């Protein structure tokens, strides 16, 4: 078991090390986040809509698309020189590879979120401090599902040479539940209402996390074979 965890961690850390080296995915993710925030901010007709009303949507759309840019890369690393083959050759359990990539991506997406959240607060000047913990909780829950699915899907599309086009195509439908849930909860939070009023959404996202993290972990082995 400790072995197993060590394998997963080794893989995750390796991904982060590479990302830290090149910073490509992070930079483009961040750049894109800023673009989206700006676009959404300026796209509203100030006479019609208050910026804070579109803030939750902006936040989540930013997260989604910024993160998607990064996911493509995570498996490109493995396919570039077919390093994944060497990993498979080591004979470590395939689910360990999944958890490794999963953790790596989670850290990556988390980083992007951590950076765009302040930007978002800045742009839409809203007060988050009072309910920051709940907000973080919501974000975390939504992100987990998102990353789990993204991990298995990117492992597939990277083999198709149409990865850029295929990943959003396959991934976006799966994002609807966590995304919509995230937005709704965020909106409520910004209105200063307590999370407890929205257990429905929380439950939904929770169940979603559970279902798809398991499913992804189980199906991942199937995806690695050639």
């Amino acid at each position, binding site marked *: 078991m400790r072995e197993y965890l060590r394998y997963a961690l080794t893989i995750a850390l390796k991904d982060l090390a590479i990302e830290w080296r090149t910073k490509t995915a992070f930079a483009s993710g961040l750049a894109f986040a800023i673009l989206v925030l700006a676009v959404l901010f300026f796209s509203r007709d100030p006479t019609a809509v208050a910026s804070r009303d579109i803030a939750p949507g902006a936040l989540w759309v930013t997260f989604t698309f910024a993160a998607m840019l990064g996911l493509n890369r995570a498996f490109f690393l493995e396919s570039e020189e077919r390093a994944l083959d060497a990993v498979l050759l080591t004979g470590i359990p395939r689910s360990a590879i999944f958890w490794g990539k999963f953790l790596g991506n989670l850290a990556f997406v988390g980083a992007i979120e951590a950076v765009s959240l302040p930007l978002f607060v800045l742009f839409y000047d809203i007060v988050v401090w009072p309910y920051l913990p709940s907000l973080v909780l919501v974000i975390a829950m939504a992100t987990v599902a998102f990353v789990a699915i993204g991990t298995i899907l990117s492992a*597939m599309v990277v*083999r*198709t040479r149409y990865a850029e086009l*295929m990943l959003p*195509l*396959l991934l976006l439908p799966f994002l*609807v*539940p966590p995304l919509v849930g995230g937005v709704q909860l965020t909106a409520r939070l910004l209105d200063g209402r307590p999370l407890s009023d929205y257990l429905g959404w929380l439950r939904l996202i929770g169940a979603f996390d559970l279902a798809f993290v398991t499913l992804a972990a189980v*199906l991942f082995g*199937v995806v690695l074979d050639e």
Partner: protein
Amino acid sequence: MMTMDRAERMARVGGAITLLALVGVIGVYVRALAFTPVERFQGLAQKIYYVHVPNAWAALLAFVVTGLLSILYLWLKDRRIDLAAAASAEVGMAFAVVMMTTGPIWGKPIWGTWWTWDARLTSTLFLFLLFVGYLVLRGVMTDPGVRGRFCAVIGIMALVLVPFIHMTVYLFRTLHPQPILLKPSAPSLPGAMLVTLLTSIFVFTVLYVGFTTQRYALAVMRELRAEEAANAA
């Protein structure tokens, strides 16, 4: 796989079923247009109901079957199951397209809008898109084995996803029901209409079976021919 003549026989059977179903469809429409009372509020527009609903039904049926076959494929690893799943998905796509077009055509006169983000509509839309993805993926994968496994994974995940999307859109709506929107749900139909609807649904189910059998048989035949060609070379 299977032998060529078995595949051909299968194709013929599928063709026969399809033919039967088509006759049935004609029957249903004759009945729908001539012998079923015109709906009071919607007028003739309501006739599209007998296209829309059975198509929707057939599409959903097809997608569910694909999902189940996907599970089966990962379990038994038999290439034919993969082909069957693909066949079902393609046929379902056809029905879905009819559904997605008749729906709005119906919606415009009745809701006054082409589209509304109602729970069922939306979940259907996303399901539809997922299967676009499914077929696109099939298109770009070259190796049958990998293609089969990948598509199976998508099929299974789609199966699990749909209820979640439905719940989501439902929660989203209940927060703030649209004033103008009347959600499409079976109005308690007068007997005549109901009978017509049920028969049409039955007929379309048969049609689905016919199409899928044929499509599957054709796929098998294509594989067999290609194999012969390759072995000859």
